[in-house]
């Protein structure tokens, strides 16, 4: 059932922009409303999905990786690699002293909330949480043409053979500092893109413009679910 995103306590920085791009069906999550479907037609070779209402969290500090492992996060000291978590989320290793945790696409934020709540400055562990949900907008770009589209916006070679599943690039996308991670769903390439939330509308415009020649358009979270289960052809 669709809800009104304006009634949610938190909103995606893009909720108005998404409405402009077509009829949006919203699903309420604990942290806000996520666009489940945008428009009625299936996305072509390329789909841009706003995942900004989904939970995410960062940790930084010299003992971050050991602290994450002690709390059951699947992670190794491999900067610019991501690790899939048992709950379906991702742990991105940005440096030997920094990780970014992306919640599962279901929007279940209990594990990340627990990690944040367990953190105690008096424990003396040299790591501290970063509220990435407030600082970064989160897009997913799905489709085989995604590397070609990113080539117009970004200097890093994201071709599927050169940028494997779970690779991370911290680089400039459309002149914004951004984190790009490839995390395939159901064998189909999906690139997650995280960048300054204050520039989210600008970035959405850039992505839509770049995707146009590949038949791309904005889609809802349901498309990623359909990719994962193989329902999307």
């Amino acid at each position: 059932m669709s809800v009104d995103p304006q009634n949610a306590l938190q909103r995606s920085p893009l909720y108005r922009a998404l409405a402009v791009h077509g009829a949006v069906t919203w699903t309420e999550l604990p942290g806000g409303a996520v666009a489940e479907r945008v428009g009625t037609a299936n996305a072509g070779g390329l789909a841009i999905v706003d995942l900004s209402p989904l939970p995410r969290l960062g940790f930084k500090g010299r003992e971050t990786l050991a602290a994450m492992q002690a709390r059951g996060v699947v992670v190794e000291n491999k900067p610019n690699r991501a690790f899939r978590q048992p709950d379906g989320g991702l742990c991105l290793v940005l440096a030997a002293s920094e990780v970014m945790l992306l919640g599962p696409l279901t929007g279940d934020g209990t594990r990340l909330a627990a990690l944040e709540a367990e953190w105690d400055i008096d424990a003396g562990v040299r790591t501290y949480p970063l509220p990435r949900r407030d600082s970064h907008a989160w897009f997913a770009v799905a489709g085989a043409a995604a590397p070609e589209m990113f080539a117009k916006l970004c200097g890093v070679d994201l071709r599927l053979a050169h940028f494997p599943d779970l690779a991370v690039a911290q680089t400039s996308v459309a002149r914004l500092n951004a984190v790009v991670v490839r995390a395939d769903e159901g064998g189909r390439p999906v690139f997650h893109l995280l960048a300054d939330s204050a520039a989210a509308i600008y970035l959405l415009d850039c992505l839509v413009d770049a995707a146009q020649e590949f038949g791309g358009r904005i889609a809802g979270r349901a498309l990623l679910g359909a990719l994962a289960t193989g329902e999307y052809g």
Partner: protein
Amino acid sequence: MKIMVCPLNGPRNITEFVCGGDVKAVPDPAACSDAEWTDYLFIEDNIAGEVDEWWLHTPSNTWFIARRNTLTDEILATMTVADYFDSKRSAADAVAGAGGAA
């Protein structure tokens, strides 16, 4: 576009980087004179030749050291801060060791 190699992230466009100035020894602010502190903060050697500089890869907020020729603007090497100061320390130890033996 000019390419710089970040020690953490690999080759990237030069527009992703910001120069942080020469690597200089920090004087003890409690013990040094005003002139020494002013020299550290504001006065640059402006060397025409090879210099060691602080650089920042802004998307990942990674500070590192680059050796650059200021005449040709050629980047000769980039290294992590730990590697740079480890190599400086072992070079200083080698000099001290040679001095002790003489």
